[in-house]
């Protein structure tokens, strides 16, 4: 059975290779091939899952060793896979949601001439992501980690002719590279500490190393996670990443890739467990990000950017949970999975809305769409209820547990973290209600599509529709079916996982579990969450539901303006990093030219000047040369005589 693991990665990888190298003749069938191979991967995943359920909890972990990858001295990295409950969860999520989004993209990308390539990139992403979660050592994980980064780069910049898309892609890759420094240093630290970086030996022996080393490793892993999962302070790329086609935002920048950081922290749980300081930092990062993302999400008028802020915030929840240790690991992953369903659903819904609205992304120009797009409305609405944690839906089960666990941390920390999580839940309710109201309710605020070249993030098909009023319509079946499937997940996954502790029992052997006791009692937490949620919805309704919404955004308060600008994070980056970097490189170019090269050229110039003067002796007259020869002879004779005299 374990020999099938490689096929999980292999199938989409084959798809990527065929689609990207195949050339134009595959244009007709390429998307079918890509979807099929993603589905094959999902099928194998299901088969392995069934097999895994058939075995006892202790021997559910499978290994597959392919070959020795890098082997120098004691540095041994194998190309080996490890399939345990944790990776199984991810495999099903990735290949399942991945397949759905492949199907969705068939319709969504129908008019794009480069659809074949799009599917190639999607397959590449699925392969890399599966490699990431299946790797048996950190170096192979790094391989997958960068692989998804590459896929993300290619897909964000898929519409490369738009400078904004190309810039966003570059930015995403660069910010991730900063995070990669963390991952590489963490691996190096593991190597110098344990002499290996395979999961088994490192995690089994984690407690033997000194706490300082473990804290360092933990912080470096956190840096990596921050990059990939868009956590403060490396969150700035995620909003821009919405330049990519919407299916990409759904798959990569909502459901799967951005959660890789959570996977990394949970996977390295043994290290974090032994490094409380690192854990504390993780929780702080999670709490800050969940508020940050939520605040940003409140102010954005671009539907995808609002959802991106939400994603950031939800991942903040997961990171917070992961930082709580064994109390929270399971819930982090659970929220990750349910979030995968409802956030993918929300993004696909947003894509469907844009599809019907001339690729308009400004929610202020939507309104009243529920009658024109019933399926989208319903699926989006279910996703909305799930994300705000409406009782009984997915989000309720997973998010509630996280808030509970945060309070259970105990002490002042527990109150602060729990309070932040609670506040975040309220803000979530506010901004998601805002999205909902702006998009589907209220009066129509539709605007004619601007000229193609002025569209800020227009997709290529926009060129044909310039200047016309939108005619909202329901999307084709290939798009609505995935949305419906995901809506099912959004509604029922939480209850399925949460009731009877199914998910807990499934993951516990890998991640471990401790029950945390919140100081106020679980029911109190749940009830207060409900209250906060109701308040958030009410405020949103009072602001956007009761009165008409202006098409052009009002100036707003300072906080609103700050949130629109991502709380000035980009401005800070621009001033400090970009400008500073430009000045640095420019001055270095100058230094290289005038100083480093100048010293050498100066020497050369002085030698040149001297020889230029000496050259005048070479006047071409034989007699002049004869004089020098004769003079030389005289000097020689004089020298000889002098030497003899001495």
């Amino acid at each position, binding site marked *: 059975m374990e020999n099938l693991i490689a096929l999980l990665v292999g199938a989409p990888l084959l798809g990527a290779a065929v689609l990207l190298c195949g050339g134009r003749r595959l244009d007709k069938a390429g998307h079918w091939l890509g979807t099929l191979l993603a589905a094959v991967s999902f099928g194998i995943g299901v088969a392995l899952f069934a097999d895994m359920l058939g075995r006892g909890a202790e021997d559910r972990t499978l290994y597959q060793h392919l070959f020795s990858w890098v082997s120098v001295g004691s540095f041994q990295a194998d190309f080996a896979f490890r399939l345990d409950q944790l990776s199984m969860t991810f495999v099903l999520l990735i290949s399942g949601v991945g397949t759905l989004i492949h199907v969705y993209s068939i319709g969504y990308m129908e008019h794009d001439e480069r659809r074949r390539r799009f599917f190639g990139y999607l397959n590449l992403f699925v392969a890399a992501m599966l490699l990431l979660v299946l790797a048996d050592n950190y170096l192979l994980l790094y391989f997958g980690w960068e692989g998804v980064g590459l896929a993300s780069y290619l897909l964000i910049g898929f519409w490369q002719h738009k400078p904004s898309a190309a810039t966003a892609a570059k930015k995403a890759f660069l910010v991730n590279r900063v995070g990669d420094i963390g991952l590489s240093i963490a691996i190096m630290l593991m190597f110098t500490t344990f002499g290996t970086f395979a999961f088994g030996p490192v995690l089994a022996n984690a407690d033997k190393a000194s706490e300082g080393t473990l804290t360092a490793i933990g912080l470096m892993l956190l840096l990596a996670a921050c990059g990939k999962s868009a956590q403060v302070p490396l969150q700035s790329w995620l909003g821009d990443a919405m330049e990519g086609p919407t299916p990409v935002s759904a798959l990569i920048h909502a459901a799967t890739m951005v959660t890789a950081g959570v996977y990394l922290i949970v996977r390295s749980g043994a290290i974090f467990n032994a490094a409380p300081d690192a854990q504390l930092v993780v929780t702080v990062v999670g709490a800050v990000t969940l508020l940050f993302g939520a605040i940003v999400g409140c102010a954005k008028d671009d539907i995808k950017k609002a959802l991106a802020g939400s994603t950031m915030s939800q991942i903040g929840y997961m990171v917070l949970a992961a930082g709580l240790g064994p109390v929270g690991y399971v819930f982090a992953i659970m929220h990750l999975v349910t979030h995968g369903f409802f956030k993918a659903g929300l993004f696909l819904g947003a894509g469907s809305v844009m599809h019907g609205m001339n690729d308009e992304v400004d929610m202020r120009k939507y309104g009243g769409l529920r009658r024109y797009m019933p399926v989208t409305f319903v699926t989006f609405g279910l996703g909305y209820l799930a994300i705000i944690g409406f009782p009984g839906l997915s989000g309720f089960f997973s998010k509630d547990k996280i808030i509970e666990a945060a309070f259970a941390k105990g002490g002042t920390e527990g109150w602060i973290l729990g309070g932040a999580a609670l506040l975040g839940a309220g803000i979530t309710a506010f901004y998601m209600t805002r999205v909902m109201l702006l998009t589907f309710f209220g009066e129509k605020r539709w605007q004619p599509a601007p000229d193609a070249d002025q569209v800020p993030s227009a997709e290529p098909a926009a060129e044909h529709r310039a200047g016309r009023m939108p005619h909202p319509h329901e999307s084709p079946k290939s798009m609505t079916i995935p949305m419906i499937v995901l809506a099912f997940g959004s509604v029922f996954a939480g209850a399925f996982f949460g009731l009877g502790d199914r998910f807990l029992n499934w993951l516990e052997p890998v991640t471990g579990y401790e029950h945390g006791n919140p100081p106020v009692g679980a029911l109190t937490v749940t009830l207060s969450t409900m209250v906060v949620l109701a308040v958030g919805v009410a405020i949103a309704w009072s602001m956007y539901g009761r009165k008409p919404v202006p098409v052009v955004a009002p100036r707003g308060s300072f906080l609103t303006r700050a949130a629109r600008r991502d709380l000035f994070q980009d401005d800070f980056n621009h001033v400090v990093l970009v400008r500073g970097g430009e000045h640095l490189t420019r001055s270095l170019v100058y230094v290289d030219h005038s100083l480093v090269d100048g010293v050498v050229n100066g020497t050369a110039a002085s030698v040149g000047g001297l020889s230029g003067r000496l*050259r005048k002796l*070479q*006047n*071409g*007259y*034989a*007699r002049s040369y*004869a*004089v020098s020869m*004769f003079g030389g002879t005289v000097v020689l004779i004089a020298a000889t005589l002098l030497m003899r005299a001495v």
Partner: protein
Amino acid sequence: MNPVNYLYLAALLFTIGAAGVLIRRNAIVLFMCVELMLNACNLAFVAFSRMHGNLDGQIIAFFTMVVAAAEVVVGLAIIVSLFRTRHSASVDDASLMKL
């Protein structure tokens, strides 16, 4: 009189010849100055021969004469062909060695 005076004379003639090479521009005169230097050397060799009491010096002088003859033949031929092409016998005109 000490026969070493022959050597002083030879040195003097050699120096005069060398100075001639340096200051004259006519290639023919230049060659004559070279001949003068060679002759000065010959005189010195002959004087040395007398000093050492063997004939080697004279033989060297003899060879010098032969080589000088060959040199003059070739040198004058060069001057003639040079004159044919450049219409001048001045060594300064042949300054193509200059850049």
